[in-house]
């Protein structure tokens, strides 16, 4: 082990130590305490670019009481009265402009699929998101998750889904049919 090697090794070791010890002083959220990742994907309908967020993302945002978001229900008032996502308000075309000014992001949802607004001024369209799957997906994934169909990756995710479902007043289904595996294929797992 010549001297050049010793010097390189010591430099690497000191670097590793410094980078490692500064990790202790962080408050890093891991996979299951979700930092509310504002994850969206864009889709194109008739050349319009729309932004979609998933039901799980919305549920986490409501569960963690994230500020600056307005959730709008675009269905009829009767349907709104029957059930609406907690903290959402009925959609009213006239209020949209003022809502867009007061809140950072606006999320629209409907029955099944997303709908989009075609008369939004271009500089404000970045604030509008649509819920992918609508209320139907909310029911099947958040309120009444069916564990014989939903694929769960580990026990912590299972507890998170169950707690969240109960928080919103739903009941998880078929927990006895739960199948925990890191991949849905049985034999083609790993690398």
């Amino acid at each position: 082990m010549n001297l050049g090697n010793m010097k390189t090794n010591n430099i690497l070791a000191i670097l590793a130590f410094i980078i490692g010890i500064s990790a202790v002083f962080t408050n890093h959220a891991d996979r299951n305490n979700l930092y509310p990742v504002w994850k969206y994907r864009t889709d194109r309908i008739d050349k319009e670019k729309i932004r979609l967020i998933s039901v799980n993302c919305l549920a986490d945002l409501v569960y963690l009481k994230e500020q600056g978001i307005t959730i709008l229900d675009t269905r009829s008032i009767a349907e709104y009265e029957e059930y609406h996502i907690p903290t959402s308000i009925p959609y009213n075309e006239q209020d949209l402009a003022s809502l867009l000014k007061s809140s950072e992001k606006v999320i629209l949802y409907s029955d099944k699929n997303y709908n989009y607004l075609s008369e939004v001024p271009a500089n404000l369209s970045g604030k509008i998101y649509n819920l992918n799957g609508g209320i139907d997906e909310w029911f099947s994934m958040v309120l009444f998750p069916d564990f014989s169909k939903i694929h769960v990756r580990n026990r912590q995710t299972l507890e998170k889904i169950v707690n969240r479902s109960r928080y919103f007043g739903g009941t998880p289904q078929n927990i006895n049919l739960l199948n925990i595996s890191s991949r849905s294929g049985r034999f083609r797992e790993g690398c």
Partner: protein
Amino acid sequence: MELIIAPIRFNYEVSNGLLLVFALLTGIFFGFFLEKAGFGNAGVLIKQFYLTDMRMFKVLFSAIITGMLGTFWLSYFKILDITQIYINGTYLWPQILGGILFGFGFVLCGLCPGTSCVAAFTGKLDGLAVMGGMIAGIIIFGETAPSMDKYLNFSSLGDVSIYEILNMNYGLLTFLIALFALVCFWIVGKVEERFNKKLS
């Protein structure tokens, strides 16, 4: 609430062909590094298990802590989304017992699956023999696995990480593992000196 840009494959549209080309490039560098470390030669790798040349341990652990620190800091700055990367599933007893069996096989031939390709392509015939043996082993597994299905999927915990099981802070665990690795490197250096002095 910032945008996460990595893994690029899941957040942007990447063609499959580009991914495969990238796989090839990654593999080329991987194979290059492995051969430069001397792992094309089974004699160098096996010295690890006689405590005279602990290269395999050093390379393995330094790669792990580099990768660990990298994923930790990239996910802390919200550049990498840690919920989207693949975390290997945990099957307690299959992996413990299978690991011991893998160790037996490793010492028998002196090469691991990745380095056997490097050895075979630098002319070493034992590398070719290992590759042939692995193909035979997979065929054997394919014939016998369906009858062992119950044992193979026993004690599955899913995708758990150590900090989830022990319920501790991710950053603290990162530091402890890095510290453990550095201490191990120092110990291993002393072990190497002692066993090399014994031989010469």
